[in-house]
């Protein structure tokens, strides 16, 4: 076997090994979802047993089992939405962190907005009323002042002033 043939064989073997490794690693990624993959779905779900604790942060056996299901479904190639739909079918809408936008659930989204807008309208109305009342009061004052008749000079004071003038001249 010549040196050239040996080199060629080495190169060919290396390429074959690399080719075998690349799809292998891709398959491993698809088959075994990481904890992060599982938690990305789990944080959007709440187990009814442990209220107010998202599934990714819950340590009970029930939640561990649920995370196991998510892992299994992800490894089977299910999408996030498919997994969420499965959990809703099994355990109801209340497992979702964000209630679906349908039926009575719309209240969750609409009521706070309505309260905010209603409050804003009331506040604007109140401010307008206050400003109007204030301007009415000030214009009323001005009008009163304008309409006030000039007082006739006090006779005693005018006599005192006259006397003082005389004295200062004198």
């Amino acid at each position: 076997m010549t040196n050239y043939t040996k080199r060629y064989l080495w190169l060919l073997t290396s390429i074959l090994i690399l080719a075998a490794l690349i799809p292998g690693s891709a398959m491993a990624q698809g088959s075994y979802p990481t904890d992060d993959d599982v938690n990305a779905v789990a944080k959007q779900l709440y187990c009814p047993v442990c209220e107010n604790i998202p599934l990714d942060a819950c340590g009970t056996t029930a939640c561990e089992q649920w995370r196991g299901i998510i892992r299994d479904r992800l490894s089977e190639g299910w999408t996030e939405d498919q997994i969420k739909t499965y959990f809703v079918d099994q355990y109801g809408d209340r497992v979702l962190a964000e209630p679906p936008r349908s039926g009575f659930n719309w209240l969750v989204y609409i009521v706070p907005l309505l309260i905010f807008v209603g409050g804003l309208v009331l506040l604007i109305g109140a401010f307008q009323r206050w400003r109007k009342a204030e301007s009415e009061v000030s214009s009323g004052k001005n009008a009163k002042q304008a309409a006030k008749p000039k007082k006739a000079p006090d006779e005693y004071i005018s006599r005192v002033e006259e006397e003082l003038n005389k004295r200062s001249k004198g």
Partner: protein
Amino acid sequence: MKKLLIWGGLVLLLMILGVGLIQSQQGQVGRGEIAPDFELISFSGETYQLSDYRGSVIVVNFWASWCQSCKPEALDLEAAYKFYQPRGDVLFLGVDYVDTEPEALAYLEEFQVTYPNGPDLRTKISQAFRITGVPETYIIDQDGVIVHVRIGPFMSLEEIKSYIDPLLDL
């Protein structure tokens, strides 16, 4: 008109909040009440409609594979089922609450449970009974009235029989 709309909106909002508050304050369905009707599809595929079994005594047990305190009573419930089975007028139904099917089936196999059991799909049954946790058992008489509510596990076969026997004039 504007005022009427504002007041109408406020009353509606208060009504929604009030209904929510009343619902959250309600305890579980109690003694003397008619048991809520439900449909249970067992793990083996049979359908059980509660109202179809008027005339029989019905034992509805809520459990889960992750529930440690459910385990001690599993054997007693199965023993009670076996005891009354020849009569044919006592129905035992196991409602698997917020559980995963593989673990639930493993649990039933471990405790050799043979009476009908099925998942509480969308947690509809547990919500109808307003259960506070598992295990919880409701004993329903021939007229569909709840005669006993057991919060927590039964301690023995004798205890289970002590609630069923009087309904069968035993």
